[in-house]
């Protein structure tokens, strides 16, 4: 019995062809069908290898191999660590586990020593020998590699004491970064598939749906539709064939929570889909994954293959007569395919142009059959709900938004990464406590939530408890949960233009308001950023925004004016400054900047005059220089070159 999931002896008959009802339970507490102490011991040994207890001889080194840490060099760390362990003859005692993302990619590559929870950040190849000698051999933590609070300089020995993690409640991300996503045994040892087994063996499909309804879970893909209700529609729809589809198209720029779940804990998504399949009466599932996520696709393929190998996916699962198969479809690069009808038509092999609803996918979805479509994070919540019961889940969160939500915290914030918090936490807590505040001590301006379909939250709304309804009321939207923090150096007109550039280039072109309207809104915003706008443009933007929102066919068009409408609502003065004063208050829009030389600081070294490609700078040697703003082409060459910081933009 090499793995927890292998046969203990010849008496075990479980396999895909001859499934055993008690397989999952048996591997953790068995054997069940026969009585043999040796077999029991084998199981317990395998389990204790996975769950090391404090003070144990054995150690488990977790190395993050998520996309972030991989690009910071974590693969190389694995090799070096292997060599070092060999050198010290530690290979038996110390296991290396390659994990998915911990969510703190900025500090990567991350390395964790279990069971002590020692948390090393920004580990380089050259640090490995020291970790092995000092920590693994000598039992002393390598202090210089610990995370240090950027404000106090205080080191944190374990990940639990890092403020970034301390305030989080990692329910969906529970396994991410802590188990090997390429080994189903580790998932099962951590309560994996227990929720599915409970649903399949002890509950009727209706009871499962009832439990999900009770949990209050709402879709994490954007709109927040109650998941249990969606499932019951699919259950009630008539049809000989039904499908379960997972939306893993995560196209929202600035969001990567689905990616991390897929890379770090793929079985949680498979388990959620299995439970859903059982509940709605489907026997086939598709996962539509964005093409830009090769690692997620790889991990999913491995997970599906392992689940099939142990009879968790396939026909007659656990001898119950329930069949379920999962296929992967790779997207081909179109943001609009995250929209449910576009996604389904794309799976069918068409251009991803949304269809009018009704009929909703629950009635007529994939190939015209009733189809349940949910987001990755939504499915990943389901195993927890089944294990702990809908009532318990519903204790978390606010009145109408239950459970936790994963946010991708990025932008001008100190700690960027994935954070999972209970619904209802204030934005201030997320950004200032978990996120550690604004980079470089700058002033907070706003946070953009919900990506291109969302809006911004200014200072005055920072104490808003974050949930679906409060965000909508504030003119923003939960969306997928991307949080981009912006400071005083971010221009809000530029931000609106940025999002419109995105939606304009991703519009499918089917309906008039979105195809033509996004183009015109973008043109107007570009004119304003270039200093060529006029005051009527603001009314036109509002009218266009209103009409596009009201008449577009799908969610992309219906929400794409939000970034404009919300920045107009909270930051109209910035628009007016661009139009009336031809000035960009944040100093971002290049056409509105003038480069100036601080006459006090300038030493007259003449470097800038030589650097300037337009010959706009003049002055006597050793005398303060000046810039002719008419000639200046705003390339910034002078500013970069000045040793005395005498040049500034205004």
């Amino acid at each position, binding site marked *: 019995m090499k793995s927890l999931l292998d046969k203990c002896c010849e008496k075990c008959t479980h396999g895909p062809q001859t499934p055993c009802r008690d397989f999952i339970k048996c591997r953790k507490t068995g054997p069940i069908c026969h009585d043999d102490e040796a077999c029991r011991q084998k199981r317990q040994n395998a389990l204790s290898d996975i769950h090391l207890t404090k003070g144990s001889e054995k150690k488990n080194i977790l190395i993050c191999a998520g996309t972030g840490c991989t690009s910071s060099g974590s693969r190389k760390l694995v090799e070096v660590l292997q060599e070092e362990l060999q050198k010290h003859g530690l290979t038996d005692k110390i296991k290396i586990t390659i994990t998915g993302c911990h969510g703190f990619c900025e500090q990567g590559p991350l390395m964790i020593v279990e069971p002590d929870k020692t948390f090393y950040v920004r580990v380089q190849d050259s640090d490995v020998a020291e970790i092995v000698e000092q920590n693994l051999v000598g039992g002393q933590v390598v202090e210089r590699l610990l995370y240090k609070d950027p404000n106090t300089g205080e080191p944190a020995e374990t990940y639990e004491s890092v403020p970034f993690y301390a305030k989080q409640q990692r329910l969906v991300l529970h396994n991410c970064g802590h188990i090997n996503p390429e080994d189903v045994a580790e998932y099962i040892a951590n309560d994996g598939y227990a929720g599915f087994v409970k649903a399949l063996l002890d509950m009727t499909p209706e009871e499962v749906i009832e439990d999900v309804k009770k949990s209050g879970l709402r879709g994490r893909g954007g709109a927040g539709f109650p998941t249990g209700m969606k499932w019951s529609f699919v259950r009630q729809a008539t049809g000989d064939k039904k499908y379960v589809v997972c939306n893993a198209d995560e196209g929202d720029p600035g969001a990567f929570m689905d990616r991390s779940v897929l890379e770090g804990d793929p079985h949680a998504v498979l388990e959620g889909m299995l439970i859903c399949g059982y509940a709605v009466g489907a026997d086939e599932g598709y996962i539509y994954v964005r093409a830009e996520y090769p690692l997620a696709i790889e991990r999913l393929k491995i997970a599906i293959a392992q689940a099939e190998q142990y009879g968790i996916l396939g026909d007659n699962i656990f001898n119950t007569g329930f069949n379920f198969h999962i296929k992967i479809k790779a997207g081909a690069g*179109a943001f609009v395919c995250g929209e449910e009808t576009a996604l389904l038509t794309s799976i069918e092999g068409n*251009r991803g*142009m949304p269809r*009018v609803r*009704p009929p909703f996918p629950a009635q007529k979805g994939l190939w015209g059959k009733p189809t349940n479509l949910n987001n990755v994070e939504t499915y990943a919540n389901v195993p927890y709900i089944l294990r702990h019961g809908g009532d318990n889940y519903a204790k978390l969160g606010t009145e109408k938004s239950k459970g936790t939500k994963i946010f991708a915290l990025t932008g001008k914030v100190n700690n960027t990464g994935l954070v999972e918090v209970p619904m209802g936490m204030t934005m201030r807590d997320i950004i200032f406590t978990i996120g550690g505040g604004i980079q470089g001590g700058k002033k907070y301006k706003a946070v953009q939530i919900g990506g291109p379909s969302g809006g911004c939250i200014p200072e005055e709304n920072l104490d808003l408890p974050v949930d679906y309804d409060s965000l909508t009321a504030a003119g923003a939207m939960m969306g997928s949960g991307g949080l981009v923090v912006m400071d005083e150096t971010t221009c809000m007109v530029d931000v609106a233009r940025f999002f419109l550039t995105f939606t*304009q*280039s*991703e*519009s*499918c*072109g*089917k*309906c*008039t*308001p979105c*195809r*033509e*309207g*996004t*183009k*015109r809104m973008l*043109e107007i915003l570009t004119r304003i950023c270039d200093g060529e706008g006029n005051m009527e443009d603001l009314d*036109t933007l509002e*009218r*266009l925004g*209103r*009409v596009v*929102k*009201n*008449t*577009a*066919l799908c969610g992309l068009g*219906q929400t794409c004016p939000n970034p404009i409408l919300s920045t107009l609502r909270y930051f109209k003065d910035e628009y007016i400054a661009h139009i009336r004063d031809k000035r960009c208050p944040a100093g971002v829009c290049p056409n509105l900047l003038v480069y100036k030389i601080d006459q006090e600081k300038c030493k007259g070294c003449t470097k800038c005059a030589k650097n300037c490609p337009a010959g706009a700078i003049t002055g006597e040697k050793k005398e303060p220089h000046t810039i002719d703003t008419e000639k200046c082409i705003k390339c910034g060459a002078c500013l970069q070159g000045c040793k005395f910081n005498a040049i500034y933009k205004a």
Partner: protein
Amino acid sequence: MSYVSLTINGVMVTVPKGTTVLNAAREAGVFIPTFCHDPNIPRFGACRICVVEIPGMRNLPASCVTEATEGMEVYTESPAVVEARKTILELLLANHPQDCLTCEKNGDCRLQDYAFRYSVKEAGFKGESKDYPLDDTNPYIIRDANKCILCGRCVRTCNAIPDRSVIDFGYRGFNTKIVTAMDTPLGESDCVYCGRCVTVCPVGALAWKPLAGKGRTWEMARQDVTCTFCDSGCVFEVLSKDGKNVGVIPKASGNGRPLCLKGRLGLELKYLDDPPPPYLKKDGEFAQVSWAEALGLEDILAKLDNKG
């Protein structure tokens, strides 16, 4: 059959269950503009000119794809609806040549009619507009992609005959365009010049080349004729100006009525005072051919000749 009752602009209407709001309005004699809707081809809901206001519904739904339900209240010309229609028309015109004076479709164009009705005088937005070359390399159909409003009717009607399916949507977003395979001119595609697409185009993006410059639509008298070359019995219109028959065009590609080039050519020969010479594609190039060859009658004529 069960029925539902709803009010349209305050007037009660009763229609069979399953009727769209658009059809209910038409039943009640209430006008709603449409571009992409065509009762004979699959629904699409793309142009959004047909939006109406229905209290309780999110946004302004498109009436052509919204089912009328019991007790529904519909407003077809509320301020929000009028603002939306005007804006949509302005958006379309901002990306459309201002070419009505010389356009073949002048007088029979929906874009023109609706702009008039909602008094949209000009584009209203300045900016980039499309600039594609005119496709008039074949003897039958002129395509002007710059006038196309992407209603998709041509695509849907061409694709209704599976082994034609010559055109489809191509590219994406603002660059969306109706294309043949590899975006070649129509003359280089597998098009059979049946003209189904031309009959459904609501604007001047598709026009009959043989009729170009032969007269304005209001100068023409029209007479329906039925093709008898095959069982389909397609209906055509013979157009005449000043008492002279100048052209034959298909009237509509009804359900199960494929339309074809041969039928139209045959009718041209039969009805026109001065039929233009027929062309067929040979080795990829269009060549003028005899009427007998165009109509596939060479064998029969040869036999008739032999019999003397």
